[in-house]
């Protein structure tokens, strides 16, 4: 059974009241949605709030999912709308990422795992993520969405276009402009260092 079929089967079972199916469906997407929230908001608390809002929206609208589109496209459309709503309230996308919050919250909330016992490795990961957040903060809202969906969610330009109600060419142009801007940032960093 393909991933799309599995999603549809899980949706159907969840609609019939299967808590197991709902749990499995959430588990499949929570990582992607949460990490998207981290990249958009820059802090774990807002990312968690955003993820919970997204899944609440998914739960409330699950009966409207017809299966004619991919479930991943459908859920990321909800995620997009929720992020836009939250950005209206908190203005996190135009602000600089709060790197310290991200660091603090992860230590408290994570599952117990290997990385807890390897502080150096965690620090390295955190530095990489901070660097990504700094780069993303240089982009406009539109460029950020396209980069998010293309690089991190592996959507095609056609899917991005459908999700954002723009043309595929516009999506492609925004992506290229975003990379060009990031290239300039990298060049400036290299000059400074």
């Amino acid at each position, binding site marked *: 059974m393909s991933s799309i079929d599995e999603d549809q089967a899980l949706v159907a079972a969840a609609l019939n009241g299967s808590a197991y199916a709902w749990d499995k469906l959430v588990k499949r997407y929570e*990582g992607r949605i949460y990490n998207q929230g981290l990249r958009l908001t820059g802090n774990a608390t807002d990312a968690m709030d955003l993820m919970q809002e997204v899944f*609440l929206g998914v*739960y409330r609208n699950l009966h409207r999912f017809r299966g004619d589109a991919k479930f991943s496209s459908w859920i990321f459309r909800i995620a997009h709308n929720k992020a836009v709503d939250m950005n209206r309230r908190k203005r996190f996308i135009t602000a600089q990422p709060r790197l310290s919050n991200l660091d603090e919250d992860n230590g408290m909330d994570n599952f117990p795992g290997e990385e807890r016992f390897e502080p150096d490795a965690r620090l390295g990961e955190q530095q990489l*993520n901070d660097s990504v957040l700094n780069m993303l903060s240089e982009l406009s809202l539109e460029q950020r969405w396209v980069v998010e969906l293309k690089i991190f969610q592996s959507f095609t330009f056609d899917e991005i276009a459908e999700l954002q109600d723009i043309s595929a060419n516009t999506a492609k142009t925004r992506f290229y402009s975003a990379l060009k801007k*990031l*290239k300039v940032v990298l060049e400036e960093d290299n000059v400074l260092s």
Partner: protein
Amino acid sequence: MSCPKTQHLLQEYFSDELAPVVRDELDKHLSECSHCSTELELLLMAQGNLQQWQEKQVPHWDRGLTLFRQEHKTISNASGFWSRWQWLPTAASFVMLCVLVFNFSIVTDDNGLTISFGGSPTSSSSIQSQLAEFQQLQNAEMQALVARIEDRADSNNVQLMQAVLEQTQRSTAESFDQIYSYFEQQRLLDLQDMRVGYEQLADSDYKTIRSLQQLVNFVGYQSDIR
């Protein structure tokens, strides 16, 4: 040194699906144009830097299961007793479908109960003969019924005529009685009137006689005086 093709070509480079011919042309240009190749290298580096993102584990949360269970428990409780019998309409539909598809029939006759699947020529011919017999019986009954209705209609007519005649006779006799009593009354009234008339006539005659007597007496008196 800049290249006028850079933007267009590099934008195409990141397309999802690129025709092999276009891809070859692009590769050829990139191998020849140092500006474009350097530019692409930097763009890929920027993309690579973004891809260094380390996926974070999701902190523990209940995945909305509390809400899910609450709402679905409410729904399942609301259905109550009937939720256990949800299969019943489906089963009934299935049985009906089987009855229709297999032409299932139960026949009771003098020999007992007969359960059959599908139609048989013997049974259809017997049904035909029974049908013809039934039709004949129906026709006979219809004719008898029509005859009875006609008889009933005739007797009704006779009775009606008799009733009309009786009514007419009764009303005629009553009319004669009324006329007779009327004439009788009139006769009595006339007799009464005649008696009153004679009495009045007698009274007036008596008065005339008395006046004549008085006149005679007066004349006699006058002659005595002389």
